[in-house]
């Protein structure tokens, strides 16, 4: 449902989420350390070349950049005005490269695999008193709550409409807040009643 994943069988799809996330973090930091236009251009071309390797189309790569075009345009204009054409081109190309790199990871990794490896990776927090299983539960609960919240808001909005209060933000927001907190208390009682001991 809430997943940008694009199915495939390429090497990048089969690679574990851990190495991909690490590579992305190192690559992103590297681009900020070596700030020169040729390196940014080379990185951009190299990352764009990985899209066909992962079996992704040019259309998918473009879809990652397109929503940000106007941001690029304004960055470019501001930078051109403040520090010249070279810096402007550099800032925009570096940003585009970073976004393509991050999207590549997201497009080739299932969200559920990401969550599993995140829960696993959080094992190092165990000595500090954090429990990865509890973090896993909170992740699953949060994802389940999103559609429930949308539904509760819809119900409250309809109820307030019959009272002629559809224009009041508070008349919707307050009952939604109180109902969801009541729901959270009920759910935590239900979890405890079933003997949840992670």
């Amino acid at each position, binding site marked *: 449902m*809430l*997943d*940008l*994943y694009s199915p495939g069988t390429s090497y990048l799809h089969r690679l574990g989420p851990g190495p991909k996330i690490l590579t992305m*973090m190192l690559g*992103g930091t590297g681009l900020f350390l070596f700030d020169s236009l040729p390196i940014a251009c080379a990185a951009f071309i190299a990352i764009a070349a990985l899209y066909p390797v992962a079996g992704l189309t040019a259309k998918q790569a473009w879809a990652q950049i397109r*929503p940000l075009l*106007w*941001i690029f*345009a*304004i*960055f470019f204009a*501001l*930078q051109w005005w*403040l*520090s010249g054409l070279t*810096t402007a081109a550099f*800032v925009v190309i570096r*940003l585009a490269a*970073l*976004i393509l*790199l*991050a*999207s590549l*990871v*997201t497009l080739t*990794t299932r*969200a559920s695999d*990401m*969550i599993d490896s*995140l829960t696993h990776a959080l094992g190092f927090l165990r000595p500090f008193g954090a429990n990865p299983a*509890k973090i896993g*539960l*909170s*992740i*699953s*609960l*949060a*994802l389940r*709550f*999103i559609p*429930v*919240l*949308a539904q509760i*808001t819809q119900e409250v909005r309809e109820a307030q409409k019959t009272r002629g209060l559809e224009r009041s*933000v*508070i008349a919707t*927001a*307050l009952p939604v*807040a*109180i109902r*969801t*907190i009541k*729901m*959270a*208390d009920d*759910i*935590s009682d239900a*979890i*405890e009643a079933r003997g949840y001991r992670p």
Partner: protein
Amino acid sequence: MDTKSIVYIALFAALTAALGLMPPISFAGLALPPITAQSLGVMLAGSIAGARRGGLAMLLFIALVAVGLPLLAGGRGGFGVFAGASGGFLLAWPISAAVIGYLIGRAPAAGFTLMAPMIAFGGIIVMYAVGIPWMAAVAGLPLTKAVTIMLAYVPGDLVKVILATIITRGVRRAYPAL
């Protein structure tokens, strides 16, 4: 951590995500972070769930965004957003929520005139203190220019502070034991 805290953390992370379903206002003249309803979620996480639960709820939220779920307003997500202009504001969310929760935890029965400044401090001042230098660094802007740009966001944030204060006081009246 008790079960109730886990559920509350999940709830406020989800609330912030659900607020992202409202369309963001992105104004082309000032490209940078969009005005969204999501910072209301940050304020409420702190003011209703408290410092610890609220801070952790926002940490959970940005972790979910980082792993690539499109939970930010306008369907954005993935590591790329942290490299963008709004990255610093996102990273400030857990700090903001924790500061608001801490302040209100010290005066839970505060009236409107006391609670609103507490929420404004965490939700505006703390958030901008982290977000603006980040934005300046990413966009290569001088700090003063970045501050000027962000002034455009203050009116919207003040509206959210007022809403958060009214909602928090209402919820605390309905749930005195919160």
